[in-house]
């Protein structure tokens, strides 16, 4: 029988200029393919009505996604349940195409009784995972659509003194399913001191309640100092205090997005006014790819592992041969799964024996 040779790794080392082979073009080759294909990104926004979610989305992506929206009045809102509404927009810049999907959650937190109002949202996220799992396990994997939610912006009202119970419960229900980025909404009603106090308070409470919000990855040691400094500032600034605007005002001789008050003009893109620019840069320009990666490598994998374990143990119980999705019988199952299957098997046997005994007793009694 033929054997595969042992793999030995050798470092041939750096090639000098003279010995240019040419595989340094690989990133460009990958680049070219991605530009052709384009990218997609799914962003969820959650928070009570009137927190400025739609305005912020419009400001971030320079779109006007909500112009045909009809706002409900208080009476209409009494019977409203949490809905999930998707908007899709194609954006192209410098030849790069992005298919952006915004998942809106109107109705969240608006009712009198908001018990478990996040359930439709967690269900939606799970559904996208399930769909992807089916597609990925299926036979034709050519054009799988990735509808998984890559990021959830959660809007915390600026009026309180930190996180409210609904904020805590929502984030805890979602922090292991999606990347959560908490934001302080409508930050133009707070002074700089108030913002600082609120941020500190929120950060404390996030720690205290064990909420796992999205963590920025560590900087590489070989990054330049400027990048490291920016990265540090970003991390110290969370949660971002944001302001959005659908209107253009004239400030300091320029036309900018802003809000006109009798006492002054708030400029959305002015870093001393709010953290909008930091949020935009982080979300789009530096961490979009990482958000997608964490969704795929962590949240989705957790879902998938859980799903498979549930399915495998169910198969043992139900005595079924066909599984709902095509999966191969695992040739080397996890030790945990094995134990679980063994346990369930034994349990089944015991129950069957008990049942037989009972039937026998009844039969005897009748005789």
């Amino acid at each position: 029988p033929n054997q595969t040779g042992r793999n030995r790794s050798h470092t041939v080392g750096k090639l000098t200029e003279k010995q240019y082979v040419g595989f340094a073009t690989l990133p460009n080759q990958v680049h070219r393919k991605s530009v052709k294909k384009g990218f997609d990104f799914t962003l969820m926004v959650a928070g009570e009505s009137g927190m400025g979610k739609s305005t912020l989305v419009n400001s971030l992506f320079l779109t006007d996604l909500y112009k045909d929206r009809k706002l409900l009045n208080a009476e209409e809102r009494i019977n409203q349940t949490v809905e999930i509404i998707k908007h899709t927009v194609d954006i192209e810049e410098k030849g790069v195409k992005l298919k952006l999907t915004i998942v809106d959650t109107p109705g969240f937190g608006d009712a009198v009784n908001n018990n478990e109002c996040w359930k439709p949202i967690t269900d939606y996220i799970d559904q996208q995972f399930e769909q992807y799992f089916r597609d990925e396990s299926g036979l034709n994997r050519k054009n799988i659509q990735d509808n998984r939610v890559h990021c959830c912006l959660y809007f915390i009202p600026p009026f309180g003194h930190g996180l409210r119970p609904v904020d805590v419960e929502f984030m805890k229900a979602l922090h292991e399913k999606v990347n959560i980025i908490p934001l302080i909404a409508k930050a133009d009603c707070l002074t700089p001191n108030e913002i600082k106090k609120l941020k500190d308070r929120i950060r404390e409470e996030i720690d205290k309640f064990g909420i796992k919000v999205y963590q920025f990855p560590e900087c590489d040691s070989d990054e330049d100092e400027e990048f490291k400094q920016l990265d540090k500032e970003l991390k110290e600034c969370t949660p971002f205090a944001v302001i959005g605007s659908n209107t253009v005002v004239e400030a300091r001789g320029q036309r900018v997005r802003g809000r006109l008050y009798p006492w002054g003009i708030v400029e959305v893109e002015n870093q001393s006014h709010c953290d909008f620019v930091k949020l935009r840069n982080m979300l789009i320009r530096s961490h979009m790819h990482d958000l997608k990666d964490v969704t795929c490598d962590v949240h989705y994998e957790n879902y998938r592992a859980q799903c498979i374990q549930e399915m495998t143990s169910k198969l043992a119980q139900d005595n079924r041969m066909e599984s709902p999705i095509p999966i191969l019988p695992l040739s080397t199952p996890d030790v945990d799964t094995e134990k679980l299957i063994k346990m369930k098997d034994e349990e089944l046997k015991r129950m069957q024996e008990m049942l037989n005994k009972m039937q026998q007793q009844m039969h005897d009694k009748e005789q």
Partner: protein
Amino acid sequence: MSEATKPQPQAKGEKTPISDTSYVGIDAILEQMRRKAMKQGFEFNVMVVGQSGLGKSTLMNTLFKSKVSRKSVQPNVEERIPKTVEIKSVSHDVEEKGVRMKLTVIDTPGFGDQINNENCWQPIMKFINDQYETYLQEEININRKKRIPDTRVHCCIYFIPPTGHCLRPLDVEFMRHLSKVVNIVPVIAKADTLTLEERDSFKKTIREELRANGIDVYPQKEFDEDAEDRMINDKIREMIPFAVVGSDQEYQVNGKRILGRKTKWGTIEVENIAHCEFAYLRDLLIRTHMQNIKDITCSIHYETYRVRRLNESNILFTSNPPDHPAPATPQPNGVAAHRSSVE
């Protein structure tokens, strides 16, 4: 609903999108991807197949400008023709301009060297399928690795001896079987024994024979993505198989140091396209189509294997083929898990 963004001019203070000078910054995602790719590094697995003495190891060394072949790594092992086809892998970590790559060269000594070469492609086919199987098993695992190590053979360079006549039955058999599971790049080895006319007519004959036998070598026509690709690949298809000469010896020619072979009648410059087509092979394999070669392996050859395995496992739920006995682990309801053989 889908709509492209279009700025509309309106009066100050009213609801209006920002003017054209504003910029969201989504193209920065390319830079993010590049950063990540540079950090992770790339993998490339290339197999060389052909009889002894056709210059396979030398060509690999020439392509990657370093001693990457098995022979270079084990220089003192006595060269002998093995009794059966062996598969020997050697991996190297190479780096160029900050781009790191793990290059694996898979050698197949013994191929075509026996008196009776029947079915000598089978160990090679098995090796390729085994790599697919390993990847598949990792992919369906419950707790799978973030980045599944890719040992799949991305490209198989097949060395055709420079007879000048036509393909031999062994060449046809090998390529016919393997072009279905891996990207084959046929090359005419030791092309310095052919004149330009002989080379052209040999290539034409080979192309006709490949066509006549239904052998699809890389770049396969059916996998061209769009018109632009087709144009580029058509030009390549008119030139294959590339007639190559390899060398790891440097000589001085016209004041430059070049890789070549020195003979009494002249020096053959390996990278000179007037002398041989090595440069075209290098460009195809490394500089322009490397990513595409990997993509076709992943999204087509591997997927074909996977679909076949999924279908098989639903039917052959209980049989245990001879060379893959069922592992001795308890399974739900006594159904034996197995890995069915592919051939």
